[in-house]
């Protein structure tokens, strides 16, 4: 929030003016109210494997994270470029594989990628879109230094927090929004619906029917699935509501089976179709793959999109962007060592205590090492894992992440954050909602923002020009 000279950065000026005139006890009271509001709304998540963790709340911080209009312009240009390149990359990988032939990305990285789906080769997803919905994780290290930390093209989650956090702020502090010109995020569900409908398959006649596929009420992101379906006015379906009828995927309604045109699925590729993928899966629809191939349904995101989330592939993103757009990447990557390469591995092992090491297919902050925060014992254990299976890991320097203020009992205190803006793509273009999910490490000094590791969220404000 403050610049190095200790002045309030300009996007925060109006907010700080308001905050200083406020009674801290009142804000404290509002913070408690916000929590009750989240419980009543049911914005809870399940932590897998936790005994008492059936339903938990992600901590919510009442101080917004504020981004200026010019910062947002830069960010959104960079994100748009990146998402365009990713989609082009996926098309290429599942068609002529020019980028592999050109030697810009090693073939192993695709062939050895568990998310690579050979069945997608040569198949044209409706509208040529693979990444209908994506989330780009961004960190900031200085006044004008933004880095992309991760691409989430498989099934980025958290958009319901972006929306509910704003809703909560509007309820708690309505007067603030009269003082600070904040851009709206609430049209995300409608944009999502339009964007999905614009990708309807050839078999669709008339207004496309969109449905959201969820694994069910016990899934950790169920709230989000129902939220999105509800706000799009789409049906929220589970595998057992669906079957293939006359060459279409259809849902069982009170009046019989009705065809679905676009399925926004929140289940992984493996579980989509027990006839074509995992036979033990109860979550998917037997035969949906054949319907997809024949142009009978759009699956969003397209099967096989998960290869883009691979953290080893991430290190090639600057090349990928250049290859498909002819431009330099507008947003830089975090420098990354690929442990699969012996030289890189050696350097990583030498500098382990100062690095962050991640599994290439990992997510949720599991299975990662934060060098500076790790004990000798943890370092030694991780060293052994690295040596045993180097290609499973990448390493990055520990960035001096910028901090933003959170509200504590003792007033404002700085904490590290990241940002996940949400991006929609259709043949009609790319839409980035001005805002996103700001995740915050609630413990002082911590760099881990994942909700499964005790991270919290806050509202993200992009200011009007």
């Amino acid at each position, binding site marked *: 929030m403050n610049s190095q000279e200790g002045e309030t950065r300009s996007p925060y000026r109006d907010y700080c003016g308001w905050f200083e005139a406020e009674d801290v006890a009142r804000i404290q009271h509002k913070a408690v109210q916000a929590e009750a509001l989240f419980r*009543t709304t049911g914005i809870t998540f399940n932590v897998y494997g936790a005994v008492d963790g059936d339903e938990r709340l992600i901590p919510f911080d009442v101080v917004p994270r504020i981004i200026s209009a010019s910062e947002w312009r830069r960010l959104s240009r960079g994100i748009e470029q990146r998402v365009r390149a990713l989609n082009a990359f996926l098309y290429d990988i599942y068609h002529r594989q020019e980028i592999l032939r050109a030697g810009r990305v090693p073939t192993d990285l695709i062939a050895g990628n568990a998310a690579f789906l050979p069945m997608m080769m040569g198949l044209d997803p409706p509208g040529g879109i693979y990444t209908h919905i994506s989330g780009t994780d961004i960190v900031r290290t200085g006044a004008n230094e933004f880095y992309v930390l991760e691409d989430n093209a498989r099934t980025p989650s958290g958009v319901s927090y972006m929306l509910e956090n704003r809703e909560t702020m509007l309820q708690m502090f309505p007067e603030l929004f009269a003082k600070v010109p904040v851009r709206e995020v609430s049209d995300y569900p409608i944009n999502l619906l339009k964007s999905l409908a614009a990708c309807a398959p050839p078999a669709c006649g008339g207004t496309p029917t969109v449905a959201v596929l969820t694994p069910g009420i016990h899934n950790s992101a169920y709230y989000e699935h129902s939220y999105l379906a509800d706000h799009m006015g789409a049906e929220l379906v589970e595998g057992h509501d669906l079957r293939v009828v006359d060459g279409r995927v259809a849902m069982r309604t009170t009046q019989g089976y009705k065809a679905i045109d676009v399925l926004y699925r929140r289940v992984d590729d493996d579980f989509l179709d027990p006839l074509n993928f995992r036979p033990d899966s109860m979550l998917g629809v037997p035969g949906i793959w054949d319907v997809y191939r024949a142009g009978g349904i759009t699956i969003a995101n397209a099967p096989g999109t998960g290869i883009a989330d691979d953290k080893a592939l991430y290190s090639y993103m600057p090349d990928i962007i250049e290859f498909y757009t002819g431009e330099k990447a507008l947003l830089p990557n975090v420098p990354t060592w690929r442990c699969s390469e012996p030289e890189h591995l050696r350097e990583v092992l030498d500098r382990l205590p100062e690095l962050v090491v991640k599994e290439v297919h990992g997510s949720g902050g599991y299975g990662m090492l934060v060098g500076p925060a790790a004990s000798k014992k943890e370092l030694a254990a991780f060293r052994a894992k690295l040596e045993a299976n180097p290609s499973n890991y990448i390493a990055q320097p520990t960035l001096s992440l910028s901090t933003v203020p959170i509200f504590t009992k003792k007033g404002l205190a700085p904490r590290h954050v990241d940002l996940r803006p949400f991006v929609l793509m259709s043949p009609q273009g790319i839409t980035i909602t001005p805002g996103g999910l700001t995740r915050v490490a609630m413990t002082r000094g911590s760099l881990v923002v994942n909700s499964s590791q005790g991270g919290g969220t806050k509202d993200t404000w992009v200011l009007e020009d």
Partner: protein
Amino acid sequence: MLGKTAGSLFWMARYLERSENNARLIDAGFRIALTRSQTAAAEWKSVLVTAGVNQAFQAAHGDYSSARVIDFLLRDPANPSSILSVIRQARDNARTARTALTRETWEAVNTSWMTLTALLKRQVREDDLPDVLTTIRQQSAQVRGALNGTMLRNDGYHFALLGTYLERADNTARILDVKYYLLLPSVAHIGTSIDNVQWETILRSVSAHRAYRWLYGAEISALKIAEFLILYPQMPRSLAFCSERMENHLAQLQRHYGEETDAWRLAHALSHEKLNAPIQSIFDGGLHQYVTGFLRDIANLARQVERDYRFVE
């Protein structure tokens, strides 16, 4: 609307109604246990039979001490009809049908679940029981209020209300089924009025002891009580009232979908034939047979609704 969603709305409403009905049964049982300790065990047994969980209770506990029965009915996770089990199932169904509920209705259900789960974390002391039972009924009333005040009168609403009235009819019929012997003019009762406390209990379990007085004054007769609970069209828990409502909601669904259903035909027959008889002829034909027949009819009706509207595959 998805068949599954329709089914979840129907069951959400049934479970919510069940929690309220069970609270009322506990209330009536508790009153007898306090005032007539010698008949308490028999009374608790009839409460458990009415709730359909007597066998489960017997298997786990055996003797009918007030504390044990109350805890079993309120909190026991092994009892699928305990208030805690029922409210959890209501909430799970509401979550499944979340996209068909207004925010207010969903939040009312979720708040009920949170409130009752917190309230029933520990065994309830007898002194606190009346308050706890009041809270259960209030929570139920809040959900009903939200449903009534905010839901579009579309198919989802009719499925929910259908569930409510089916469950309620089932509950009233079960009370009659368990207590019918009290209402029968048997040898012992010829020439005597039925036991005051007993008839009050029956009426209390359907929250209608005052309503009965307004209608029939001080005259207490088996025939009148049965008439009130079975045939009286303005009494919101009578079999006639519930059947008329079920028929009405099924008719609205038919109109909504433009398709005639067997479920509606069953409900129509229930309300126009079964419940269109003078009370004397019901007694003549045997009250017990009549009530068990009614329970069978509504079980069939529930199955037919499930089939007609494709709740499951």
